[in-house]
C-alpha cells in the first residue's frame, strides 16, 4: 500500500517489465550456466545446419549478382535464430515463414532447389515437399501470424498436439495483424509460437524509430501470454526456449512470444544498399557475436572442434549446393499457360475463355 498518489505514480515510473536476455553460450564460447544442458552432439548438428544455411545464403547472393536468380533477401547473421527454432519442431507442425526464413524452412525440410526456384521467380518454389506443412513465404508483413493462430487452433479442435510457428521481424510488430494475432492466440489459447527475429532494422528503419518499447518480448504482457527474450545468435539458447514454448503449446498451455535478438549483416534484399542507412563498420563488432563463430569457440573449449571434419562437411555442403543449382537451372522452363491453373479448383468459364485467347495470342 502506497501512502500518496505521487508516490504511487513514482512507483509506476519505476515499473520495469523486465525481459532479460537469455544466453546459454557466451560470445567467447564459454558456458553461461554450470548445469549439464550442453549436448556437444546436438551442437555439432546445429553447427552443420548453420554452416549449410550460410553457404546457401552466400551462394544465392552470388547467383543474384550474376543474374542467375532475381532479387534475394539474405539472412546471414540470423542462422541461429532460425535453425535453433526449426529444430524444436516435429513433422506435422506448421511453419509460416517470411521471405528471409530459408534457414528455418531448409532445416524443416524444404529443398535448396525449391528455394532457388522461388527466387528465380517460379511459383513452384512455394510448394513444400509432400506432407510438410510449410506455407509459402508471407510477403505482406505480419499477416501470417493470424494464419498460424488459425492452423494451430485447428489442431487443438482436432484433439492433436501439433503446434504452429509464425516467423516475423521487429518491423512486423508495428502492424495491426501482429496485435490481432497475439490477441486471438491469447483469447483462444492456441498452440502458437510467435517467433520474432529482432534484427534491428525494418529495411532501413532502425528499431528505435520503429517503437518506443525497449523490448519486443514485453508486447506479450498486454496479451497476458509469456514473452521471452533470447540471444538470437546463441543457437542453443534459442533451441531451449523454443523447446519450452513448443512443449507448453503441446500440452495446451497456449502461445508464447519469443524475441530472438539478432542482426542481419547484409542488405534487406539485394536491391538495396545498406551503407545508405547504417554504418556497416558495426558489422565487424557484430561478427564477434556471430552464431557460427560462437559454436566453433564452444566446441573448441570442449575439445570437440575437429577442423578436418568441418572441412569435410564444408565440402559436402558445397556439393549439395552445386547440385541444387544445377538441378534448378536445368529445370524445364515454366509454362505460361500454367498461370490459368489453380486460380479455382475448377476453372471458371470466363477464365477458360481468357486462357483460349491467350493461347491464340502466343501462337499467332
Amino acid at each position, binding site marked *: 500500500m502506497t501512502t500518496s498518489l505521487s508516490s504511487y505514480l513514482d512507483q509506476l515510473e519505476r515499473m520495469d517489465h523486465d525481459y532479460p536476455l537469455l544466453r546459454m553460450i557466451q560470445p567467447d564460447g564459454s558456458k553461461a550456466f554450470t548445469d549439464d544442458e550442453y549436448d556437444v552432439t546436438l551442437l555439432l548438428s546445429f553447427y552443420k545446419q548453420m554452416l549449410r544455411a550460410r553457404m546457401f545464403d552466400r551462394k544465392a547472393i552470388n547467383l543474384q549478382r550474376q543474374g542467375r536468380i532475381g532479387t534475394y533477401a539474405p539472412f546471414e547473421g540470423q542462422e541461429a535464430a532460425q535453425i535453433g527454432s526449426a529444430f524444436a519442431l516435429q513433422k506435422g507442425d506448421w511453419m509460416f515463414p517470411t521471405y528471409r526464413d530459408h534457414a528455418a524452412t531448409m532445416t524443416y525440410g524444404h529443398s535448396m532447389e525449391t528455394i532457388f526456384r522461388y527466387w528465380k521467380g517460379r511459383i513452384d518454389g*512455394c510448394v513444400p515437399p509432400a506432407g510438410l506443412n510449410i506455407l*509459402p513465404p508471407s510477403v505482406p508483413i505480419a499477416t501470417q501470424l493470424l494464419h*498460424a493462430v488459425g492452423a*494451430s487452433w485447428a489442431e487443438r*479442435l482436432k484433439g492433436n498436439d501439433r503446434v504452429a510457428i509464425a516467423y516475423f521481424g521487429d518491423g512486423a510488430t508495428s502492424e495491426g495483424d501482429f496485435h490481432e494475432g497475439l490477441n*486471438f492466440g491469447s483469447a483462444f489459447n492456441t498452440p502458437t509460437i510467435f517467433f520474432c527475429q529482432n534484427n534491428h532494422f525494418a529495411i532501413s528503419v532502425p528499431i528505435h524509430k520503429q517503437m518506443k518499447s525497449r523490448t519486443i518480448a514485453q508486447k506479450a504482457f498486454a496479451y497476458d501470454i509469456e514473452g521471452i527474450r533470447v540471444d538470437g545468435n546463441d543457437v542453443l539458447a534459442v533451441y531451449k526456449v523454443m523447446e519450452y514454448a513448443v512443449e507448453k503449446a503441446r500440452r495446451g498451455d497456449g502461445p508464447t512470444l519469443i524475441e530472438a535478438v539478432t542482426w542481419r549483416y547484409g542488405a534487406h534484399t539485394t536491391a538495396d544498399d545498406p551503407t545508405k542507412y547504417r554504418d556497416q563498420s558495426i558489422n565487424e563488432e557484430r561478427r564477434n557475436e556471430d552464431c557460427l563463430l560462437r559454436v566453433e569457440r564452444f566446441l573448441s573449449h570442449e575439445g570437440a572442434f575437429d577442423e578436418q571434419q568441418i572441412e569435410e562437411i564444408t565440402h559436402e555442403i558445397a556439393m549439395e549446393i552445386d547440385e541444387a543449382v544445377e538441378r534448378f537451372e536445368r529445370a524445364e522452363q515454366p509454362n505460361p499457360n500454367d498461370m490459368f491453373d489453380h*486460380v*479455382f479448383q*475448377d476453372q471458371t468459364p470466363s477464365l477458360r475463355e481468357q486462357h483460349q485467347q491467350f493461347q491464340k495470342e502466343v501462337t499467332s
Partner: protein
Amino acid sequence: MTSSLQQTKELTMVQAITDGLKIMLEEDPTTMILGEDIGVNGGVFRATDGLLEQFGENRVIDTPLAESGIIGTSIGLALNGFKPIAEMQFQGFIYPAFEQIVSHAIRIRTRTLGAFTVPMVIRAPYGAGIHAPELHSDSMEAMFTHLPGLKVVIPSNAYDAKGLLISAIEDPDPVLFMEPMRTYRSTRTSVPSEKYTVKIGEASTLTTGEDVTILAYGNMISPALAAAKQAKENDNVNVEVVDLRTLYPLDEQTILESVEKTGRVVIVHEGHKTSGFGAELIAFINDKALFSLRNPIVRVTGYDVHVPFFSIEEHYIPNATRIYQAIDTVLNEE
C-alpha cells in the same frame, strides 16, 4: 433440387440463412461460424440465433472485435481442414480484412499449385435502406468481383439465399456471400426444410419479356420487379428481369440469351456508378452481343457519393420510379 415431397416453410431471408447454416453445421463437422456477436447474441440480425446453444462454442465462435483477425484466423483454420464461415457484421466493416482476402485467402491455392487451399465463406450484410447509422450501408461488390480467385454471390430471396449459402459452404474456394439487409425480412418465400442447393454461377429469370432486359441482383430485385410490373400495366411493355444471383462467375449464357432477344438493357445496382459492376456488364455485352443492341444500355445505380446518412438515403438508392424511367429511356432512345 426441390422435391415435391419435401416440407416447406414460409421464411424470411434471414431465417433461411439461419436454416442453411444449421443444416451445414449438422451435416459437416468441419464447419465453424466465426464473427462478432454471433454467439450469445445470435448476430446483430439474428442470422445465427440459437446456433451457439445447439453446436457449442467450438463451432460457433464469438471472436474478438477484429475483422482482419477473423478472416486471417479463418484462413489458418481452412488451411488445416476446417470450413470457416466468417461473418463480417456489415460489409462496411470488411475493409480491415481486405488485405487478408486479397493477399492470402484468394491466392494460396495459386501460390501452392493447389497444395494448400482456403475453402471458406465470408458472409457480409450489405446495402442501404434500413435506417442504419452511417458507414453501415455500403454496397461494395465491385471491389470484390475485381479479385481473381474469389466467387461473389448475392441472393435476393429466402429460397436462393439458403440454396446458395449451402453451395458456398460446399465450394472448394473462397466465396463472398453478400446478404441484402433491406431484403432480410421484407418478404417471405416458400423454403424447403431439407437441404438443397442453388448452383453458384447461375442467374434466374424472374419474369420473361421480349422488350427490355433488366439485369439486377440483391436489394435491387424488388424495385426492378415493381418497375417491370408498372411498365406492363401502363405501357404494355414486357420486361425480362434477370436476377444475376452470382456476380462471379457470371452466368453469361442467360444474360446473352435475354439481350439477344430484347436488344434493350437496363442495369440496376445499388453500388456507386463509376467502376461499378454495371460497367463490367456493359463491357461484357459489348464483347459478346453489341450488335444485338437496339439502343444504348442504361444504368440505374447509386451515385458516386458516399451512401448518405439515412434521413436522405432513399434518394440514393435506385427505386422503381428511376428504373421505370430507365425502361422508358431504353425503349425510346434513337
